């Protein structure tokens, strides 16, 4: 295992340095990352990188193959456009985690902000804590698993993919063009396998699934002006 102290390394040079170090060993620990952006962006191959503190924006974006573990918190857009591998966050994250992810698995042991899995196209995202609003918005594939409370408008306008939830109020937090459904045996099995793999104390049987409506035409709550003449009556002033 190799170590790399990034305390005095310029942000632009970090990823080159990481790639060079990984030629010596496929296990690397990064110290003093100090919330730098773009850490491990585009990293590929069979390797394991552990970050001992927190990271900034775009952590592990376009990741393809490696296992990247962050012991601290993670900024916005981590794992965007990820292809494969693992991105494991031990604490909390900012918003838009796993945007456009194509494959691989993101595990967040804490909470995450809004729009987790924005436009995701494949892979798995597991959020052990709560998620902000618009989770899985306009997703085009993949599985988003949220163990804690959902935010509002969950799954709005999903085209494909699934959101697994055990939030008892999930139905009232869903966005448009999705429906609340029971989980299948195969899905339960997949969830249990993932929970076991990442040592998450949960039971797949407790989950429901938010699925996209696949009819030809989406309906948008705010698309048409919602004109309510009855409600407007209170503004009526009698002329005279």
């Amino acid at each position, binding site marked *: 295992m190799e170590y790399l102290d990034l305390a005095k390394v310029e942000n632009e040079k970090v990823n080159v340095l990481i790639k060079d170090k990984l030629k010596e060993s496929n296990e690397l620990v990064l110290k003093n990352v100090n919330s730098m*952006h*773009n850490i491990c962006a*585009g990293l590929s191959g069979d390797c394991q990188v552990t970050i001992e503190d927190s990271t*900034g924006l775009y952590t592990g974006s376009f990741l393809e193959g490696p296992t990247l573990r962050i012991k601290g918190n993670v900024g*916005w857009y981590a794992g*965007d*456009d990820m292809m494969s591998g693992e991105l494991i966050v031990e604490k909390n994250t900012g918003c838009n985690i796993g*945007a456009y992810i194509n494959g691989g698995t993101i595990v967040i042991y804490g909470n995450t902000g809004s729009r987790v899995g924005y*436009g995701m196209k494949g892979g798995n995202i597991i959020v052990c804590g709560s998620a902000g609003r618009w989770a899985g918005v306009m997703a085009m594939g993949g599985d988003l698993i949220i163990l804690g409370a959902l935010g509002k408008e969950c799954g709005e306008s999903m085209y494909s993919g699934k959101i697994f939830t055990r939030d008892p109020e999930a139905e009232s937090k869903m966005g448009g063009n999705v429906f609340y459904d029971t989980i299948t045996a195969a899905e339960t099995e997949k969830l249990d396998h993932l929970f076991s793999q990442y040592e998450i104390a949960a039971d797949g049987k407790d989950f429901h699934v938010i699925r996209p409506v696949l009819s030809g035409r989406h309906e948008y709550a705010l698309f*048409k002006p919602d004109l309510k003449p009855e409600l407007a009556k209170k503004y009526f002033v009698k002329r005279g």
Partner: protein
Amino acid sequence: MADKKQVTIHNAPKATWNKEILSEIDYKATNGKYRIRGCGSPRPMPKFDDLMILPSQLTRMPIDTYREDCETRTVLGARFAKKPLIIETPVMIAGMSYGALSKEAKIALAKATKLVGTVISNGEGGILPEELENSYRQSVQILASRMGFTRRNMEVADMLEVLYGIGAKPGLSGHLMGEKISEEIAEVRKIPIGIDLHSHPRAGDAFGADDMVVKMQQLREMTDWETPIFCKIAAGRVRDDIKIAIKLGFDGIILDGCSAGTGAAPVMATDHLGIPTMPALVAAVRTLEEMGVKEEMSLIVSGGITNGADLAKALAIGADAVAIGTAAMVAMGCRVCMNCQTGKCAFGIGTQDPELRQNLDVDEAAERVANYIKAITAETVLLAKSAGKTKLKNLEREDLRALTLEACAMTGIPLVGSDLVIGKGFGFSADNGL
């Protein structure tokens, strides 16, 4: 006394209540919703025809139209990219998606680029493998929807376009009606078959310019600083948007005026959003000059380019190249019926119907598009040589004069005859004694 007879006036001109307006109102009254239309806006807009090119006479020598060279080769995106894009003519094929266009049309356009040595942009929804296989140079768009986009797309790109908007419907996301989402389109885009698609309105991986600064660093690392990275913006607040694009570190800008086309858009959007191509281009050039990056940053302009005169005038104003969309479709056979959104294009261009698609002969269409690009390049060369230029890029705004007061005021280019400049001069003296 005779009864008064009611007089009926036939065929009185109706400025406001013309046939189009009545038809619009009928549609809305019947359906309770707004209309969607293909192609773009039919509204008359200020255009390059409002400018004239000054020929060389005693002040400078003309270049022989038939016997002397005029260089058309164009280098794009050399600001920071280690491998800028080099094309043989300053005419590129604009981003039109596989979905809006048939597979045959996309392949024909790609083949045309190989015949003339230029670049094609893939448009929304991933790259059709046959397009990539047949194109001379491939530009890949990074859109807010990111449909069909993966790391693999970036690796094959000769040029990247981070797309913020298109001129025909700026501020709106892509529309692809369910009729056009066939099994093949669904596979490339990774979406269900037959669903009406209103794609993502803004990027999920950069909410604003501050984040985009960091995102640019990411894209540069992903491309090893080799591939030119452009941003495509619709013409709106051009001055401010261009300044941000410069600050973000793009290699170039594709500026799409509101005269641009699209496969489907709300009529209100195409008719009333954005500003026309010509004044937008002037605003962009002014800004690049103000910021001191005109020489290093490439500028491609699109929206309503029809012939070599448009190209020559755009280059003279300060563009490095133009992108053509509708014109290339017309070269393939499109008659601009403006019903692309229905997916029933009889020419096999804007359709996914297997039978209609057979109406397009790919090789013939490719040749026609290539011929058209060659012809407008030749037209531009003719005009440039007449103005005394041995390189297209040497066309300059001093070669232009405005035909109308409006064009003069919009561009800062002097009015023909009087050399009057209205408003802010565009490198010309505005000393009109006014």
